[in-house]
């Protein structure tokens, strides 16, 4: 009888523990869900820390415009280093060799500075929620059609530029700060390379000339046809 009571007590305690775990798990899910809702709303409203301040003359806006000018001129794929050096954690071109394609119509929609000093810049990429992608075999995948206008936000910080190097095996060595004054840099590592439509046409033409692979040449022809319809 005593054994049976003990067993029942143990079973009840186990059930209680399981219920507690379920309750904690449910609470975690709810908190995570609430955070996911709350964070996006506050991200744009106040991206920078500290008090809002007037942007200095060498505006962080100029840094982001420089990046996008490189995308519009095609320099980003022809000469990656200057683009990578606009970021606080520069690095080599990602090995997958994909290139994202945005509309020719882009502009800095909004920017703000704070006294931290930090800054936020939003580039309007015009129509479509996401960019198209040209893969390493020059095949273009357009994004889903949408009536959404999109923007990409950049957070900038005042830092010393860092240079990265490669060892003899071609592996990148951790970046070191350069002996120069601090400047506005886009926080984090560079994204995968991107171009605007016009620059992408030139990129595909140039890459097509370099190859003898008939599949890549066929992909390039189809990609060019698609891109030329976007003017």
């Amino acid at each position, binding site marked *: 009888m005593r054994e049976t009571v003990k067993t029942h007590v143990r079973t009840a305690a186990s059930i209680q523990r399981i219920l507690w775990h379920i309750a904690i798990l449910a609470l975690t899910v709810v908190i995570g869900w609430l955070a996911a809702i709350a964070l996006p*709303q506050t*991200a744009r409203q106040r991206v920078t820390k500290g008090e809002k301040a007037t942007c200095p003359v060498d505006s962080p806006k100029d840094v982001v415009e420089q990046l996008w000018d490189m995308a519009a001129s095609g320099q980003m794929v022809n000469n990656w280093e200057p683009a990578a050096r606009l970021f606080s954690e520069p690095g080599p071109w990602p090995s997958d060799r994909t290139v994202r394609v945005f509309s020719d119509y882009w502009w800095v*929609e*909004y920017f703000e500075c704070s006294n931290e000093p930090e800054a936020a810049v939003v580039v309007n990429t015009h*129509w479509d929620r996401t960019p198209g992608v040209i893969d390493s075999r020059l095949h273009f995948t357009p994004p889903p059609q949408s009536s959404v*206008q999109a923007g990409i936000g950049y957070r900038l910080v005042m830092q010393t530029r860092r240079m990265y190097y490669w060892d003899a095996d071609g592996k990148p060595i951790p970046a070191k700060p350069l002996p120069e004054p601090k400047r506005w840099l886009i926080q984090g590592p560079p994204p995968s390379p991107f171009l605007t439509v016009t620059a992408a046409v030139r990129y595909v033409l140039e890459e097509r000339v370099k190859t003898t692979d008939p599949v890549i040449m066929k992909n390039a022809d189809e990609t060019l046809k698609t891109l030329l319809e*976007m003017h």
Partner: protein
Amino acid sequence: MGDPGTIGPSGQNHNVKQLFNLAAQTEMNALNAGGNNVIACRVSTIDDFKQALIGGLPGESLTGQITGGVYYFGHSGEYHTTFGPLVFDESGVFVGQIQAPNTNILSTNVSDLSLVQSSYNNGNALGSNAAMWLKGCQSAVKFGGPTSIAQLISNNITRGVYGYDVGTYFSHDTIANDRYVNGKGRTTSEVLPIYMIPAGAPHHKPLPLACVPGGGECAKQ
């Protein structure tokens, strides 16, 4: 009227060419026929939009207060911003397509329109009975943002604003006679009359939501 629009990397062409202008012309003809004085303006930025309301656009012949109302024919809808892993969605009025800041009206710059409140003899450039109609897509939808752009405009101009919570399309028929649900797969010739019609079942088209200044959210009429 806003700018006609461009094409995105998906290949979807948002260039409506003359259709915004012709929709505005249709509205203008109807208002003129009713004895109203109407001035039409092309706007490409929030500053143009504001100047049009206060009579400051070059060549605009507005000299007094707007006593009837304001109609905007142009792009509007969802604006999606990514900040690294964070995303933010809101509604916006996509006035222009020139490559310059403040081409859109968004939550970040809508307060520029508050100048309207004091620009006519220190009073509102829009008369107390005037309202604004946003003839574009989904300006009264929040899209996860704190409030819709139609409501924010209403708060800033302190006048009522009407905006749709659905998409819109062009038709040669009036809202009462149009036989389609939406504009998908159809092209509309550039011939008057042109109406901007909200998406919805024929003969049961939704009314625009009404946004009242001072808070709250746009509501069904």
